[in-house]
């Protein structure tokens, strides 16, 4: 059970959270300007990074807020975001 640092509530067990995807998957503002290929890439593919990823999580069974953490997908180790400490 990984221990996720919620910026609002502190560390909590992972089962209080839901994974929200990679954080550079912002919805484009102008979908109609996308080529079909580019749009397909946007909807169907994710970076699926093997290594350090920045990703959204939502503290569903707590404060219910979204936030971004940095995790190493090889080890699930969560590392500080932008050098800022994420400890309590």
């Amino acid at each position, binding site marked *: 059970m990984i221990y996720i640092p919620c910026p*609002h*509530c*502190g560390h*909590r*067990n992972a*089962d*209080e959270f839901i994974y929200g995807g990679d954080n550079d998957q912002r919805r484009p503002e102008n979908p109609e300007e996308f080529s079909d290929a580019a749009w397909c890439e946007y909807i169907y593919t994710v970076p699926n990074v093997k290594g350090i990823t920045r990703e959204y999580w939502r503290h569903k*069974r*707590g*404060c*219910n*807020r979204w936030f971004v953490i940095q995790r190493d997908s090889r080890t699930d180790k969560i590392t500080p975001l932008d050098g800022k400490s994420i400890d309590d």
Partner: protein
Amino acid sequence: MTGYNARLDAISHKGMLDLRGDAEAARLCGEALACRFPAKPNTKIALPDHGALICLSDDHWILETVDGLQLQVLEQLELAAEAQFHSFCDVSDMYSHFRLSGLEAMDVLAQCVAIDIHPSVFGPGSTARCAFADAVAQVSCLDNSPAFEISVFSSFERYVTDFLSMAMGD
């Protein structure tokens, strides 16, 4: 012999308001209620007349008051925060409340929540919204006897009572 030294009591409904808004909305409401909205998540303050105020995150509070007063308070707060973007809502029926107490109440609670409830970190006045078995609860420490208050969503009331009574060992 079975059973921990603990008891579970249902608490009757409270007036509950779900308050969303930014710091300014909170300030305005604070003025109206003659208190300061806590800014730190998972803190609880007592209100002069109205029970308590729990901070869930920097834009989200739960106000507890005596059942019956909630709509009046709601009106008062709506008025106070009128100019500010906010969302206030009566959620008094959304929650069911319990009091878990007794010498071994912690042994029971530790089976239900994964947060640290040791008195050195979760003493009287502490509160947390967290997973409670497979439900969600607002858990507060009332006193060092110890006693805890547990508020859960109403459709989970039976599940949570059943879970607690199993955890208590009967």
